[in-house]
Every structure is written in C-alpha cells, then in structure tokens.
C-alpha cells in the first residue's frame, strides 16, 4: 500500500517545477501589459540649402553621379526612418539669406509617408532668389529653431555667393549653444563645376569664371588692396584687374563651416553617404523624453524557453557529467 500518491514525489521533482514555471510564464504573457517607459526622442528642424552649388554632382549613388542635394535628401530620409516614434521633424529650405519653414514639427511615425514625400520633393527650383548668404541664413535658421523649440540640422556646402568679405565673419547675435544641432557639410573636397540652368529649368552647361562674383567688392577694400596692380584710392580701390578665382567651382568649404559651427555652438559633420547623419545628430541632439512602451512578453517567453530546454536537457546533461547508476547495475 503506497501511502504517498506518486504526484507527491512528482511535485518535488525539479524538472516538474521547471515545466510548471515555464507554463506559468507562457500563460502570463497573455496578461502582462507593456511596461510604459520614456525613450529619448529628438525634435529637429532640418534646413536644406537649395542654392545652385547644391546641384554639383560630386557624390555617387548606384554607380551614377549624384548631386549634393540628392545626397542630402537621401541622408535626411535615412535619418527620418531611424528616428524613434514620438520624435518630431520640421522641414525648411534655405536660399538667399533666410530659411523658409515648410511645416512645423510633426510626429515622425504616424506621418512618415507625407514627411518622406516632402523630403523627396525638395528641389532647387523652389528657390526664390539666387543668392546664397549662408552665414545670415544659418543665424536665422538658429533663431527659427529656437522659436519652434527644436534642434537644428543645417545642410549646406558652405559656398557663400556673393563671397564674404575677406576674413570678415559677421558677429553672431544669438547665444552660442542655446540651440543645439549640426551643420552638415555637403560636397566633395575637390573642386567641381556647378551646373547652370536656363529660365525653364533645363541644364545648359556649367558656370564659367566670369559668370560669378569672384570677390566681394562691397564696402571698404581689403588691407592688401594698395599692393594690387593699378590700385587707385578713388578710381580703383580694389585694383584695376578683374577678380579671378575659383568661385565658379565648388567644393565643401569645411574651414568656413567649422568656423560657423564654432561661432554658433553647433557641431559639424560631413555628409558622406545616407547613414552619415544619424550618429552625429544622436551625439548632439537634445534628448527629449517620448512615451514608449516596452513589450515584456519576449523576456517572459525567453525565460520560459530556457526553463523548458533545461527540463529536457537535465537528464542527458546529468548523464554526461556524473555517472548516475546505470540501469544495468540496478
């Protein structure tokens, strides 16, 4: 007569306990709610330079030459796709001397399709004037980002048109570092020709040396003017020769952009492929808490799986490690 029913012993069996715990965990997945938690999102205003020099094709994608603007768009779309839900993006254009806000910050997951479409539709033909006074545009873009309470990503190649007066970076009127963000230098390091378009938007060649202003001749002449050929204080204060130079060619003006970044407390990054903005922005962006949810079920499931595997493997493992009494001897 067995006084103790077999299940008493079964209840004490470690493998039974493991399986029962796994069962409890598997059942718990149906009831455990996702854990609310705060994730770090970003709020960012992206301002894209759409002036003529951004049409320079010194990037390559898929074996084809790619313009700086297209490369910048690809990078922004990559950035958009990688932002955590709850992050918000605003988009602006830059040309002339000011940014133009296309739309106020929008949540990126719910509105992904229109945001992606709006970035894809950026075009140099949207430019309302042909100047490219980047320093002024950047300062106003920083002010705009401050107004709408976002960080700033300012994509430009740094080519000022007309050129800045030699060595004269105007003072920054805002407070450096009050708006955080990134100046993104677009373009290759070597000089490339700038495509020229006619009034119907068709490409008609490249800019030549005499097509663009090579030197800023507004305001007082530079200090070295006296030594120039044909200098006359009244009739030829900048010298008699036409200014020559390479302003009709374009490369990324990194020293200028880095100086601008220092002046305004932004960081600098070089645009180098679609994924090149993600890490630099993450490094400088203001972390703003966005509501996220952590699904606990994978953790419960993983624990249950470990328990089940342990229950199945207990016997073979023990047989391997220590020689339990074999059936033959019993």
């Amino acid at each position, binding site marked *: 007569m067995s006084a103790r029913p077999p299940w008493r012993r079964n209840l004490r069996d470690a493998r039974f306990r493991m399986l029962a715990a796994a069962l409890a965990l598997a059942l718990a997945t149906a009831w455990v709610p996702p854990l609310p938690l705060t994730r770090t999102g970003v709020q960012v205003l992206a301002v894209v330079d759409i002036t003529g020099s951004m049409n320079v094709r010194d990037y390559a994608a898929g074996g084809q030459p790619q313009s700086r603007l297209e490369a910048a768009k690809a990078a922004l779309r990559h950035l958009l796709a990688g932002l955590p839900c709850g992050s918000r993006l605003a988009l602006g254009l830059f040309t002339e001397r000011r940014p133009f806000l296309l739309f106020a910050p929008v949540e990126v997951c719910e509105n992904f399709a229109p945001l992606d479409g709006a970035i894809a539709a950026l075009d140099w033909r949207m430019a309302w004037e042909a100047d490219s006074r980047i320093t002024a545009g950047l300062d106003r873009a920083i002010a705009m980002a401050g107004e709408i309470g976002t960080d700033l990503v300012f994509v430009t190649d740094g080519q000022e048109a007309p050129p800045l007066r030699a060595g004269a970076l105007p003072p920054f009127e805002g407070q450096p570092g009050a708006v955080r963000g990134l100046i993104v230098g677009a373009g290759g390091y070597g000089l490339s020709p700038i495509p020229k378009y006619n009034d119907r938007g068709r490409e008609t060649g490249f800019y030549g040396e005499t097509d663009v202003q090579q030197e800023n001749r507004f305001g007082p002449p530079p200090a070295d003017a006296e030594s120039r050929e044909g200098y006359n204080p009244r009739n030829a204060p900048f010298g008699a020769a036409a200014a020559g130079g390479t302003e009709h060619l374009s490369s990324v003006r990194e020293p200028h952009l880095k100086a601008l970044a220092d002046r305004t407390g932004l960081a600098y990054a070089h645009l180098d492929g679609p994924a090149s903005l993600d890490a630099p922005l993450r490094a400088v962006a203001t972390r703003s808490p966005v509501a996220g949810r952590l699904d606990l079920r*994978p953790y419960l499931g993983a624990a249950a799986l470990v328990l089940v595997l342990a229950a199945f493997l207990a016997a073979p493992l023990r047989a391997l490690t220590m020689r339990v009494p074999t*059936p033959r001897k019993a």
Partner: protein
Amino acid sequence: MLPAELARFGAERPWVLWLLPLALLPLVAAPRRRAAWADLAAVPPDPFSRALAGLLRAAGCLAVTGLVAGIAGPYRAGERVTRTGIGAEVSMLIDRSGSMNETFAGRQPSGAEESKAAASRRILGDFVGSRAHDLFAVTAFSTAPMLVLPMTDRHDAVRAAITAIDRPGLDYTNVGRGLAMALGQFGAASGDASRVLLLVSDGAAVIDPRVQDTLRAAFAKIRPNLYWLFLRTKGSPGIADRPAGEDTPQAAPERHLDLFFKSLRVPYRAFEAEGPEAVAAAIRQIESLERDPIPYVEVRPRRDLAGRAYGFAAFGLVLLVLAKLAEVDLARGRAGQGAARAPERRMAA
C-alpha cells in the same frame, strides 16, 4: 496568390527563428526521471503507450516551437482596404508673398489685429480634419512654387504645414507656376474622387501666355473644382472691378486672373473675403459644396500573432506538466497499486 499571402507574415526579431531547430530536442530527450529497467524488449508492444509517447514528444515540440516563435514576435502585416466616404482631394495653393503678413486693412498687424496669413492659418487649420476622409496636399508659392506636402490623409502633417503659413513671407506673387505645381499634386490613380484646387491669395499676377496654355491643358486633363479665396485688402481693386484706364492684365491682374479661371471650363467659384469672418464663411461654403463620395484607404493595423504562439506553447506545456504529474516510479509503482500502469508510463518515457 500564395506567396503574396505568405509575404504578409513577418517577425519583429526574425533572427530568433534560428533557434527553431531546438524544437527537435524533445524527439531525443525527455524531461522524465530515469527508471531502472533491464530491457525494453521485455515489455510487450503497447499501441497506447506508443501513442502516449508520441503525444508527449509532440507536446514538447509544440512548446519549444511556440516559445521560439513567440519570442520572435510574429505578426501579420496590416491590410489596406479601400472604402468609400464623403470627402475630396484638396490641393491647397497658398500665397506666401510678403503682403500676406499684413492685415486686411493693409497694415502691419498690431495688438489684437490678425494678419491675412494668421487668419487663413486659423481657418484653414479648422477646415483640415473637420472631415475624416479628406486628402490634402499643400503647395506654397511666391516667386517660385514650393511643394510643402504631397497628397496625404495625415491631417496632423497638413495642420503642421498650415501652422507655418503665417511666418514671414517671401517676395512676389507668381501664381502661374504655383497653379501648375498644385495641379501636379493630384495623383493619377485617384479615379473619380472629387478634386478641389483651393487657391488662397491676396493678389494676383499676370500669367505668362505660354504658361496659360500649359495650365489650360492641365486643367482640362485633371478637371478639378477650382476655388479662389481672394483675401482682399481694403481699398485694393476687387475681382470684378474694371480699371479706370486700359483693361489689361497688367493694370488689373485680379480681374484677368478671374477671367482666365472662368475661361477654363471647370467648375469655378471665387470668394472675395475682406475679413476673417468672410474667410470662414467661404470655407464653410466650400465644405458644403464638396460632398461627393471619395475612395479612401483604410489601413488596418497589423495583427500581433505572438499571443497565439504563446498560447500553443502553453497548450504543449500543459500536456507536459500533466504527464509530469502523472509520472510513476517503477520501484514504488511495483509496491503500490499503480503497478499495472507503470510499464505504460515507462514506455512513454
């Protein structure tokens, strides 16, 4: 058909599925105690025991498979279902020239005064989202047209685009190219939905005759209902005013833009608003006019299948746990009443 159906299934962590071979483990190992038995051949073959053993193996496989699948986070992708609602495809073309930042009296706004841009921002913002199935596209124009948002049903994004319209405007009013881009916002595939082109501007400009021809062709092709919300500044010429001198487009651009619109042979109405109330009334009227059915796409959210996977795992685990509870030791079983059942259990092991 079948591959398309299969392609809708996915997993959040697909790499976890590499653990699936672990599901074969129950075929070679069992979670039951070892029993001392000289030779299995000594037991007569018992179909019930065999079936029980098979069942428990299957339960083990099911438990491991279910858990691995559950951890991988399986789902069935959301469906896009086309339904019909009341609404329209609205392409908004908004003037962002500098004068939009003045009041209806033509001054810089001061105190409680509202600029034309701020009034249209407020009223258009209410318009967007008042009906769930409207689609909107936003185009801005000054000297050049700017595509702000492509046609979308995400009203938050549209409102964000409208929020931006009372920021300082740009230079001039070049309505011709703006109209061309706003027409381009209507998708080719939208079928027979009602299309609305809503032009919000406080002035007009001469449209280049060459551009006029292009626009005529585009209007004839797309056939939108055209509404011109003309924010008229006090004292400036209205749509219907004939100029005192020569009646040329240069002298009265508003009147000639109106004439051009009338000559397009598309349904057209102009609203001349001289204050925020008039703008609101015009928008209400447009809303009531556009009451046609529109096909819209409803995105059904994706279905999470992890719960089902865990359910299968739990079912397998229930069987394993019950088997574990019913486990009988040979030595004790022989001594007790369960002697008759004991061999079966061992066979199952």
